[in-house]
């Protein structure tokens, strides 16, 4: 399928390291739409929807933010904390969305497994179904994410 100029610009931006080290696509050889489609299939198999996952991530981020940097207990098995960093990061899609450079860490108390996401990750999943490409520092594996954030 031939890509439109807008799609080409978007993919170039996602590969650029201007906003995210190694770019949002990392070293993934697949094109953007393959990445999105593969992850969409994965979350469907898990019985979840991208909006549901993003809503849960946002809820946990809000709880974490209330701790002002401290760990916050969520239910029996989950702890979350949020760290703010200076600045904002824009969404690479062509709309005026900028996110705080906040990183939420979720820790499963029993297994010790942790997963982290940025505010931009939440937006990218909710609005664009994009979990980032393999090799990107902020790539989130849907299976791992779902396992931890819904573990309560």
């Amino acid at each position, binding site marked *: 399928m031939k890509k439109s100029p807008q799609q080409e610009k978007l993919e170039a*931006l996602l590969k*650029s*390291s*201007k*906003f*995210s*080290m*190694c770019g949002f696509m990392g070293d993934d050889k697949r094109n953007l739409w393959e990445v999105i489609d593969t992850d969409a299939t994965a979350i469907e198999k898990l019985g979840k929807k991208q909006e549901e996952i993003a809503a849960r991530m946002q809820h946990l981020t809000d709880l974490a*933010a*209330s701790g*002002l*940097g*401290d*760990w916050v207990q969520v239910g029996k098995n989950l702890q979350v904390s*949020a*760290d*703010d*960093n*200076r*600045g*904002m990061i*824009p969404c*690479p899609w*062509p*709309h*005026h969305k*900028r996110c*705080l*450079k*906040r*990183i939420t860490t979720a820790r499963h108390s029993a297994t010790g497994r942790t997963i*982290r996401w940025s505010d931009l990750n939440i937006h990218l999943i909710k609005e664009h179904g994009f979990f980032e490409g393999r090799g990107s*520092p*902020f790539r989130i594996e849907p299976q791992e994410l779902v396992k931890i954030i819904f573990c309560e």
Partner: protein
Amino acid sequence: MGTTAVAIFIISGVGAFLATLLVFAERVITNYGDIEIDINSGEKKFTVKGGGSLLETLNAQKIFIPSACGGRGTCAYCKVRVTEGAGSLLPTEEPYMNAQERAEGIRLSCQVKVRNALKIQIPESLFAIKEYVCVCEKITDYTYDMKQFNLKLVDPPTIKYTPGQYIQFLAPAYEGSPEEVYRAYSISSDPADKSTIELIVRRVPDGICTTYLFDHLKEGDRVKINGPYGQFLLRDTSVPIIFIAGGSGVAPIKCMLHEMKNAGNTRKAIFFFGVRTTKDLFLIDEMKNFEKELAHFTFVPAVSQPEEGSNWQGVTGRVTNVAEDYLKKQSDAKEYEGYLCGSPGMIDSSIRVLTACGIPEEKIYYDKFS
């Protein structure tokens, strides 16, 4: 075989012809000649070769418009008001403009091409912004994720700034990050030393600029900064001050304390510095020195979740709660000015605490990390 060679020859020839045509078009057809740019109704005028973006054209004239995306039209930081000569709003700008901005002629300077004489309006403060070449003189490790960088200015050799302001640091391309980027950091130095800029930086996991600063920058390396920017300034009054900061938010407060010391300022001031664990504490000795050097200054480090066995003897609790406890005991609490620097969550929480203690919101000044 012969047919293949001829085909390759023809394709190569067509390609070479098109490339030549493009170069010709670039040089002749898109040659806009000399173009005048008028800034702030004649306050500054210069003539430039047309064809470039307004952002890069202004940068070449040493007028630095903040930009985080390097002119890709995605950060929307580089807005300027163009009153004449820019043509209509481009599709690449539309998502970033609200109705009022459209009505006022606000444009993304990275998207506006310099093709006709332009009249633009920019804030006066941007004229004072310069680019500085510096040498990284010293790197100090504070904690596992916090370092201080002392940058000696080379060209120009001195800088004038007001305590509380920040600069933009240019991280050059390096392995794993092939493009240069700018990031903002508050100045923490003693403003009496106009030849050095000191930055206190916390490592952002997989952050482009902090990875450069922490893993690649070495003492003796040359770097570039531009600035100063920002309006987070110490007000010239005599009322007591409450400073609240977390992590690297200490930087502008430290700069303000230097300024108070230099000026012999005798204002009553208290600084609540919040961290999560004792491993996150730093600058304690420097702050104790300020306590000796400033007549009425008190430093209160607060640890919210001290590690088991850390034997922490100081104040335990969230910095906002600790500040609230203090203010509740002050009969003159509503006289205070608040100066806050840290995460948006900490700032919002601090504002709630300070206003609940009677400090009017207009007397609370802050630098949110956003």
